[in-house]
C-alpha cells in the first residue's frame, strides 16, 4: 500500500459515523414479520386457492352428512367456559371465545393455512394484481399486534423427508392427542414472543400441522396459558380418511392429487415421487444423483389454467454423467402429475477441467452467421455450427501463458467471424501492470486461426496502448479493425487500426487528440460494412466528453456523431451509454441506457436503412443489463437488471412481456447470442445473489427453456 492509500485508509478509519436510526430497526422488524412475498405469480394459484377452499367446504359437508355419530357439528361451536370450538376439518380445538377467526387459505411451497385466530384484525393476506401477461399474488401478514394482542396461525404442512422425531435444538417435546410434537419458543424481530407448536399428522408421512402464535404483553402469562390450553384440547378428526401412505417402493409413487390436498400435500413431495418414478425408468447403471432442482409454479409452457400448480421443470444432475431435464405437467385431478423426460442432456464439458469447479463456466460468448455460436472458457474456444447442439473445442493454444496482463478493462476478447476464422487480442510480452501512469506499457498480440482453432498464429501489433480497451471487428476474413479506446485513466488517446490481410499487418487510421476526452471514441465498436464503422460510449470506462454514438463512413479515418432522436446532443459516459455495440442483422438496432431523474430508461433505436437514419422503436422504464438480442425483425429479447431475467417483445418493441427462464440456474444474464430464431446461447452468473461462476446455457426454443451447454 502506498502513502496515498494509507492516508485514505486512515481517514476512513477515523471517521465518526452515526448509528442507524431506531426507525430503521423497526422497519426491519416490520419487514421480517411479513409473510413470504412471491416475486412472480403462480398464475393459477389465486384461482386454485379459491377452488381448493370450495373443495374443502364440499368435503366437509359430505363428511358432516356421512360422518359417524349422526349430528354434524357446525364450526365453530360454542363451548363452556368462555371457549369456542373450531374444527379445521382435520382436527378441532377450543380457544377463547373472545378471539376472532379469519379463514384465509394461503398456500406456499410447504404449507397451507387453515385458519387465523386473533384478538386483532387480520386483513386478507393475499393481494392479487394484474400485471402485463400474468397475475401477481403477494401474500404476507398484514396485521399488527397491539398491546395484549395475539395472532395464531394454524397450518397444514407437507415436506418430503420431514420427520417429527428430529426435534430442533432448544425445542421441548410434547404429545398432541397422542401424536408426537414439539414446541419452539422464538422471538419475532419485533421482540414479541413467537411460539410454534409442530405435531405429526396421524397416519401420513412427511405431513404435519403447525400452530404459530405471536403475542405481546403486558399479560403474556395469561396468553401463553391460553395457548397451552388450546393445544391441550386438540382432537384429531378421525372422520377424515388418512392420506394413503406411499407405496413401499417410493420409486413408483405418483399420486393423482385431488384438489383438496393442495397445500396439504406439498407439491415438492408429489413431484419428488413423480420424479423418482421417472428416474426408475433409467438404466440400472446410472450414476449417482448429485442434485435435483425444481422449477415450478411460475411458468406454464402451454398457458396456465385450472389447477396445474405443479407445471414446471426438474433438472437432475448426476455426479458424473449427463444431466436430465424433466418436464412436469400437472393434470390433476383428472389424471395426476405427469413427468416426462425432455433430456437427457448431453455430457457437459469436462467437469474436472475447471479450477473453480463449475462444469461449464465461461468467459465470453457470441454468435456468427449461418447458425454459429461461440464461447470461451478457461482459455479454450468452443465453436458450434449447429446452434449449440454440438461443439468443437479449440485447445487452449490461443493464450500466451502468463502474458494476458489484466489491463483492468479485460483481455482476450475474441472476434469469431465464422466456424473457421477467429481472432483474439491479448496483452503481449513487455506489458506492465496497469496503474494509469504515463509509463505503463501495453503491447498487443493478435492470435488468429483460419482453421477453426486447430492451429493458431501470433502476430505482434506495433505500438503501446496502455489503459485502452480493445475492440476487434472483422467484416470478412481479410478486412478488420481494432479500436483501442481511450478510458478516463488512459494515457493513450483512442486509436483505430486497420488490417486488409486478415490481421497479419496493421496500420493506424485514426488517433484521437492526446488527453482523450473530446476526441476519444467509445469502445462499443462495430462494423456494418468494410467502410462503415460505429463506436459508442460504454457505461463504465468510456469517454464522458464526447457524443454518445459515432459513425465513420470512410473506414475509420473520420468520425461524426449519429443522431438518435430524443438524445440529440447528448454526450456519452455516465449519463448515457450503449448497452452493447450496435447490431445490423437481422435488423439494425442500438440500445441506449440513460439515467434520468425517475430512474433508468432503456431506449432501443432501429434503422431500416442500415444505420443512415435511426428511429426510436421502444423505450422501457427499466435498465437493460446485457445486450438486446434480435431473433428476427420483430422478436427481441432483453435481459433486464437486478436479476429480473428476460423481457421479450414480439412486435418490434411496442409491447413487452417478461419471460420465465426455465432451466437457467440464474436470472442474472451476462450476455446472449443467437444462431437462429430458435437457437440461443446465454452466459449467466450462477447464483442469483450469491457470487458464483459464470455458466453457459443453450436454448432451442427461442429462449423459453434452457439447458446447460453440452459438447460432445
Amino acid at each position, binding site marked *: 500500500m502506498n502513502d496515498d492509500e494509507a492516508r485514505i485508509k486512515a481517514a476512513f478509519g477515523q471517521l*465518526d*459515523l452515526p448509528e442507524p436510526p431506531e426507525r430503521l430497526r423497526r422497519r426491519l422488524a416490520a419487514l421480517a414479520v411479513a409473510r413470504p412475498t412471491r416475486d412472480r405469480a403462480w398464475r393459477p394459484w389465486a384461482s386454485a386457492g379459491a377452488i381448493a377452499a370450495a373443495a374443502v367446504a364440499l368435503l366437509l359437508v359430505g363428511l358432516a352428512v356421512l360422518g359417524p355419530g349422526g349430528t354434524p357439528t357446525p364450526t365453530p361451536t360454542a363451548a363452556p367456559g368462555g371457549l369456542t370450538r373450531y374444527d379445521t376439518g382435520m382436527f378441532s380445538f377450543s380457544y377463547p371465545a373472545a378471539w376472532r377467526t379469519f379463514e384465509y387459505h394461503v398456500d406456499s411451497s410447504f404449507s397451507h393455512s387453515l385458519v387465523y385466530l386473533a384478538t386483532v384484525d387480520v386483513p386478507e393476506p393475499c393481494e392479487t394484481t394484474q400485471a402485463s401477461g400474468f397475475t401477481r399474488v403477494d401474500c404476507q401478514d398484514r396485521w399488527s399486534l397491539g398491546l395484549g394482542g395475539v395472532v395464531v396461525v394454524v397450518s397444514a404442512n407437507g415436506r418430503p423427508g420431514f420427520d417429527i422425531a428430529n426435534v430442533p435444538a432448544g425445542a421441548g417435546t410434547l404429545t398432541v392427542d397422542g401424536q408426537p410434537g414439539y414446541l419452539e419458543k422464538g422471538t419475532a424481530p419485533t421482540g414479541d414472543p413467537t411460539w410454534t407448536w409442530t405435531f405429526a399428522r396421524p397416519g401420513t408421512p412427511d405431513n404435519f400441522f403447525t400452530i404459530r402464535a405471536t403475542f405481546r404483553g403486558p399479560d403474556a402469562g395469561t396468553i401463553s396459558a391460553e395457548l397451552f390450553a388450546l393445544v391441550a384440547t386438540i382432537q384429531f378428526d378421525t372422520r377424515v380418511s388418512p392420506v394413503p401412505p406411499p407405496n413401499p417402493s417410493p420409486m413408483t409413487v405418483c399420486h393423482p392429487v385431488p384438489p383438496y390436498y393442495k397445500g396439504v400435500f406439498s407439491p415438492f413431495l408429489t413431484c419428488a415421487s413423480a420424479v*423418482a418414478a421417472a428416474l*426408475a425408468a433409467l438404466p440400472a447403471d446410472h450414476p449417482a444423483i448429485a442434485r435435483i432442482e425444481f422449477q415450478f409454479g411460475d411458468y406454464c409452457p402451454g398457458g396456465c389454467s385450472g389447477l396445474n400448480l405443479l407445471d414446471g421443470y426438474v433438472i437432475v444432475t448426476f455426479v458424473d454423467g449427463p444431466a436430465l431435464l424433466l418436464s412436469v405437467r400437472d393434470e390433476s385431478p383428472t389424471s395426476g402429475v405427469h413427468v416426462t423426460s425432455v433430456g437427457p442432456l448431453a455430457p457437459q464439458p469436462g467437469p474436472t477441467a475447471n479450477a473453480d469447479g463449475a462444469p461449464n463456466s465461461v468467459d465470453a460468448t457470441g454468435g456468427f452467421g449461418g447458425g454459429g455460436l461461440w464461447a470461451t472458457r478457461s482459455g479454450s474456444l468452443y465453436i458450434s455450427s449447429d446452434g449449440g447442439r454440438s461443439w468443437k473445442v479449440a485447445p487452449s493454444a490461443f493464450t500466451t501463458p502468463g502474458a494476458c496482463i489484466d*489491463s483492468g478493462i479485460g483481455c482476450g476478447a475474441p472476434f469469431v467471424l465464422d466456424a473457421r476464422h477467429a481472432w483474439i487480442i491479448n496483452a503481449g510480452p513487455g506489458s506492465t501492470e496497469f496503474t494509469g501512469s504515463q509509463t505503463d506499457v501495453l503491447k498487443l498480440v493478435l492470435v488468429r486461426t483460419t482453421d477453426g482453432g486447430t492451429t493458431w498464429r501470433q502476430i505482434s501489433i506495433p505500438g503501446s496502448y496502455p489503459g485502452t480497451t480493445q475492440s476487434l471487428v472483422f467484416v470478412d476474413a481479410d478486412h478488420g479493425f481494432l479500436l483501442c479506446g481511450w478510458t478516463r485513466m488512459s494515457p493513450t488517446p483512442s486509436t483505430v487500426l486497420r488490417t486488409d490481410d486478415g490481421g497479419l499487418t496493421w496500420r493506424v487510421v485514426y488517433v484521437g487528440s492526446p488527453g482523450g476526452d473530446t476526441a476519444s471514441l467509445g469502445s462499443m465498436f462495430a462494423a456494418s460494412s468494410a467502410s462503415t464503422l460505429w463506436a459508442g460510449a460504454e457505461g463504465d470506462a468510456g469517454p464522458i466528453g464526447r457524443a454518445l454514438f459515432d459513425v465513420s463512413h470512410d473506414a475509420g479515418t473520420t468520425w461524426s456523431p449519429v443522431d438518435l432522436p430524443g438524445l440529440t446532443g447528448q*454526450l456519452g459516459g455516465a*449519463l448515457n451509454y450503449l448497452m452493447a455495440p450496435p447490431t445490423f442483422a437481422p435488423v439494425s438496432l442500438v440500445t441506449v441506457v440513460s439515467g434520468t431523474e425517475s430512474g433508468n430508461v432503456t431506449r432501443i433505436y432501429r434503422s431500416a436503412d442500415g444505420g443512415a437514419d435511426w428511429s426510436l422503436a421502444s423505450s422501457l422504464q427499466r435498465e437493460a443489463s446485457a445486450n438486446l438480442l434480435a431473433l428476427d425483425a420483430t422478436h427481441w429479447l432483453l435481459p433486464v437488471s437486478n436479476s429480473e431475467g428476460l423481457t421479450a417483445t414480439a412486435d418490434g418493441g411496442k409491447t413487452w412481456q417478461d419471460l420465465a427462464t426455465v432451466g437457467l440456474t440464474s436470472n442474472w444474464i451476462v450476455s446472449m447470442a443467437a444462431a437462429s430464431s430458435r437457437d440461443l446461447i446465454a452466459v449467466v452468473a450462477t447464483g*442469483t445473489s*450469491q457470487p458464483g461462476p459464470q455458466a453457459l446455457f443453450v436454448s432451442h426454443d427461442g429462449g423459453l427453456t434452457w439447458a446447460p451447454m453440452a459438447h460432445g
Partner: protein
Amino acid sequence: VIAGAWSSSIARSLEGRTLDRRDTRARIAELAERDLTRAYRLAGLILGDANEAEEAVADALERALRHADELRDPERFRAWFDRILTNACRDRLRRRRGIRLIAMPDDVVDRQDPFRNSLARDEALREIAALEPDERIVVVLHFWADLTLDDIATRLGWPAGTVRSRFYRGLERLRRGRVGTPGPRSEP
C-alpha cells in the same frame, strides 16, 4: 436394487430445499439486525446521505427477505447482503446521475447530514462524493470495509479487472483531487 439408493439420494438432495421460508426469513432478519450498523454505515459512505442510506438499507432488507431462500449458508450472510445492499445503493446513485456533482467549499457543506459532514471534514475523503458510483463503491468497500479487491469482485460478482480499474480510477481521482472538474457532462 438401486431404487432404494436413489430414493435416499433424492431425499438427501431435497433436504437442502426444504427449509421453511418463515424460519429462513426470521434467520435473515436476525442476521441483518446484527449487521445493521455496518450495513447502514456502508450505505451511508457509498451514498453520502443518511436518508438515502436508510432507504437503501430498507430496500436491501426487503429484497433480501424476498429472496431469503437463496441464502443457503448463513455464514455467507454478509457477502450475500453486501451484494444486495450495493445494488440498492447503485440504483440510488444511478438515479442521481442527472444531478451534477461538484465539490463544495467547506462553508456550503450541509452540516445536517452526518455522513456528508463526516466525509467533508476529511481532506482526503472530501472528493469522494464526485466519484462515479461504481468507483465509490469499490473505494469504500476496500478502505472502509477492509475487503481486498478480489473479495470485492467475488462479493459483487464483478470481473476482477473491472474492480481493479474502478478502484484505480477512483483512487487516482481522489489523489489528484480533480474530481471537481470531471469534464463536460450532459445536463439533465
